[in-house]
């Protein structure tokens, strides 16, 4: 059922978290009757429970809406959902590449936010038709005129005539549907050319294997075609193609301009990567679509099972998650402190949290996660360059010529009143101010060059708390820079604990050392012997604490001959001892590692 190209509109919604994207999507579904009332779940587009709880959209999805327009014709509107987080900029860019138009949805009370702006710039670069929409006009705090001026400033379109809607009440949404038909161009593709389908997302289904979300750019893909993934090089047979209406509905084929899904009969998402181009083996396209990029981890962390016996389960769980998450990379490593685990690379902190939560929730694993770190580019005296993604593996200082760390170009949007606190924060994090621009009288855009390592430690929380939640942040990698970095080790009774080693800027080494030793003094129970805790740079001790020897550990009273209770307490103590990690002579409870490695407390 190839659709007449002139009746197709492919669009997405660019919005900040909580600005009402999912509610607007629900309203569009309502008005086009794509979902019967009975089947309608609130916020249809967010599929995973985790997303529902976090109120964010991780995996892009697409919905096909049949719309009878005012001109009396029926149109097919494909709404492509995009993730709304800085970790997933690349995924956003691919979803945008599948569209001709974008709705810029801005909360009438909040104004435009950094991520929205970043994604808007991506959309403008991708040449999409932008339809600015001011949402939540029903709120008492709504300031649609101010927000309209802000959008005018950013986008260079007149504030007058901007669409104002309430996704909640439905007000203004019919007008938006008309605007989509009028202002989003119909797709221009060559139905007769060799097939080229852009994979803008993929997910893994345990029954069907990989399901690729595709936008047909040229040609056609039909069921039973032999399909080649041009970047991955993998060839397989298309088990099914179809559209989302909104549940998956198989169709005989997908033709140029259409948005739908392809089930290529593949069990591993790494073979069907976001940004790759699907073509047919029989008549392959000469060139893939532009923009494909290998996933690039930005943040690394060691994941270790709390119970050493769970290591094989952790490996299986990661293997299974990878089926669904092409951006997840990991390799086994071992730690003297934590045993066997994996060094994992993530797109960012959110991605890391999601993976960790899924491992704990879906696979019932109890994990210790080492503090997140970035990958350092280390040039040795020999001239050789190595990448170090585990701080404990940094070669000795004497053999290092220089260390470079990844930087990001960060954009902060905040009310003008908070410029001071934001600049203080960025300066404290070794940031370099690049530009400062007023979006309106009240709102400012600050651009900084910042070390990524400084952002992955509670930067966002600090930013939020110093601006009462009004600032927003977006960033993208901007290369490596040399810096004065040192490795701080933490020693328990003279034994280094590799899990606590960190690469930090020289000026911050003392602070890290002091904080870590104090934290461990608090967390490690007293032992039979006095235990010194030291933080060192090379042979130099920069901080020291002492855990005094334990003096009391006895159950006082055997009341009324109740030996059972006493024995059970002692059995538990013995059991607890078995679960302690032994660092030299020091026994460290797992909970102490978990707590010491948490980044959200001091």
């Amino acid at each position, binding site marked *: 059922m190839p659709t007449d190209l002139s009746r197709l509109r492919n669009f997405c919604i660019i919005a900040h978290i909580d600005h009402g994207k999912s509610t607007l999507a629900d309203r569009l579904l309502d008005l086009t009757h794509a979902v019967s009332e009975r089947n309608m779940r609130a916020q249809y587009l967010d599929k995973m429970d985790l997303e529902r709880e976090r109120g964010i959209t991780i995996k892009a999805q697409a919905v096909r809406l049949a719309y009878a327009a005012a001109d009396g014709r029926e149109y097919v509107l494909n709404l492509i959902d995009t993730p709304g987080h800085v970790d997933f900029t690349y995924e956003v860019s691919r979803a945008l590449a599948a569209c001709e138009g974008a709705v810029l949805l801005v909360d009438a009370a909040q104004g435009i936010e950094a991520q929205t702006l970043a994604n808007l710039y991506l959309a403008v670069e991708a040449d999409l038709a932008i339809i600015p929409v001011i949402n939540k006009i029903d709120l008492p705090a709504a300031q649609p005129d101010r927000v309209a001026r802000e959008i005018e400033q950013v986008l260079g379109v007149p504030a007058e005539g901007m669409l104002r809607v309430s996704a909640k009440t439905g007000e203004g949404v019919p007008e938006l549907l008309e605007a989509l038909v009028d202002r989003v161009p119909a797709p221009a593709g060559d139905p007769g050319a060799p097939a080229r389908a852009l994979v803008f997302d993929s997910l893994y289904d345990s029954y069907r294997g990989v399901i690729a979300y595709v936008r047909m750019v040229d040609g056609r893909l039909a069921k039973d075609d032999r399909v080649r993934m041009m970047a991955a090089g993998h060839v397989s047979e298309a088990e099914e193609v179809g559209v989302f209406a909104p549940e998956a509905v198989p169709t005989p084929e997908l033709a140029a301009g259409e948005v739908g899904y392809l089930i290529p009969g593949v069990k591993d998402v790494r073979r069907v990567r976001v940004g790759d181009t699907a073509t047919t083996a029989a008549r392959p396209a000469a060139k893939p679509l532009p923009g494909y990029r290998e996933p690039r981890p930005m943040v690394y962390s060691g994941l270790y099972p709390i119970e050493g016996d769970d290591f094989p389960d952790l490996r299986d769980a990661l293997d299974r998650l990878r089926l669904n998450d092409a951006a997840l990379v990991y390799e086994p490593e071992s730690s003297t402190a934590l045993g066997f685990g994996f060094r994992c690379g993530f797109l960012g902190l959110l991605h890391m949290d999601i993976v960790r939560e899924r491992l704990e929730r879906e696979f019932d694993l109890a994990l210790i996660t080492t503090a997140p770190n970035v990958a350092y580019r280390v040039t040795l005296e020999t001239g050789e360059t190595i990448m170090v993604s585990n701080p404990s593996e940094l070669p000795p200082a004497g053999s290092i010529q220089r260390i470079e760390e990844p930087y990001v170009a960060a954009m902060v949007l905040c009310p003008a009143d908070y410029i001071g606190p934001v600049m203080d924060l960025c300066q404290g994090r070794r940031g370099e101010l690049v530009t400062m621009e007023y979006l309106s009288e009240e709102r400012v855009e600050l651009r900084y060059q910042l070390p990524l390592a400084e952002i992955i430690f509670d930067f966002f929380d600090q930013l939020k708390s110093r601006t009462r939640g009004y600032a927003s942040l977006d960033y993208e990698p901007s290369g490596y820079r040399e810096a004065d970095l040192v490795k701080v080790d933490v020693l328990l009774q003279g034994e280094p604990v590799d899990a606590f080693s960190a690469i930090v800027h020289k000026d911050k080494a003392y602070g890290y050392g002091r904080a870590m030793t104090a934290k461990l003094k608090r967390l490690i129970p007293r032992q039979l012997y006095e235990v010194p805790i030291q933080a060192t740079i090379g042979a130099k001790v920069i901080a020291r604490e002492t855990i005094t020897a334990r003096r009391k550990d006895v159950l006082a*009273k055997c009341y009324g001959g*109740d030996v059972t209770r006493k024995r059970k307490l002692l059995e538990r103590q013995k059991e607890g001892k078995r679960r302690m990690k032994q660092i030299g002579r020091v026994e460290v409870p797992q909970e102490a590692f978990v707590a010491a490695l948490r980044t959200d407390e001091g």
Partner: protein
Amino acid sequence: MTAGAVDNREQAVAGPVRLPHRGTEPGARSPQAALAGSLVDPGLFGVYVHVPFCLTRCQYCDFVTYTGMEGLRRPYAAALLEEAALAVAGLGAEPPVATSVFVGGGTPTLLPPDDLARVLGRLRQLLGLAPGAEVTVEANPETVDEAMAEGLASAGVTRVSMGAQSFDDRVLAALGRVHDAGRVGQAVATLRAAGVPAVNLDLIYGGPGEDAGSWAATLERAVALEPEHLSAYALTIEPATKFGRLVAAGRMAEPDEDDLADRYDTACAVLADAGYGHYEVSNWARAGHASRHNLTYWRRGRYLGLGAGAHEFDGATRRWNVPGVPQYLEAVHAGRRPTDGEERLDPGQARFEALALRLRTVDGLDPEEARALGVDPDGQEAANLRAAGLLGPGPGLALTERGMFLHGEVVARLG
């Protein structure tokens, strides 16, 4: 520890206390047979009787005890007689004679002396008491008057264990005790006058308002009363107590570990100087006055448990009674033991339990006993603990005084 203290100890608890049995027990095991298992001392057989009534509940107490219930006290005493018969019937045709009886609480002396005498008389009749058997009744100072003291003495009580807890009135008030320090001395004098042969004083350290000076003064005043036996317990905060709730609400600090250890050290020093032998973690005694009933617990002797919430041990299985008084009465009146639960220890549990209990005592385990429990007295772990000063020089396994206060750690390492 002073030489004098060591002497006391040797006299007090030299080896398993062996006492005659009435008749020949069919299933009686030799000490060697007991060794091969998990150290059940066949020479000890105690009876614990629980009296779960108190005037008020103390701030630290999570024992099975009830305030009020005046109307149930006499029916309860009567039920104890019935339960004693049921329990002894369960021991077969040739029950062993009792080497100790311990009437604890609660506050047993809230029962009239006649009732207590009847309970003891019934036990004597049903089981018989070994010559020199230890018969202890717990008392709170405010309940001891002349009539009570004389009643206890004439009932054959050999030992009264008094809940003194402190000789600092501020501490006593903070603990929720109803007596003052002066009352303890009066009660001891009254007991002596009535001819009660031995007195124990229970003390608690680490309570609110106590400091190093007040604890030292408490020990001095306790020693001045010349009790034959002293127990000193570190205050433990149990969740289901008033203190537990205050700590949980952040309105009270848990006792500081170092403070408790300092108090313990003071107790060890003061009591050794005063000639008391430190024979168990929390217990000190003059020569010949170590509590045989206490030792029955630590040496895994068998004991019956009578009364609400009482525990008993038959050498293999541990059982405990329902804690509620009405439920207790109902079961006994229906002719049933009011058993609430039981556990049969597997051999590993029994060995671990024997290790934990025996290490509480100054004698610990001799090398053969240790090996029978699966612990090598010459092994690496034992050597580490000796080097750390927690275990004595050997050849067996016995905790030093410092080691006793780290009993849990040592047991977890050896067990």
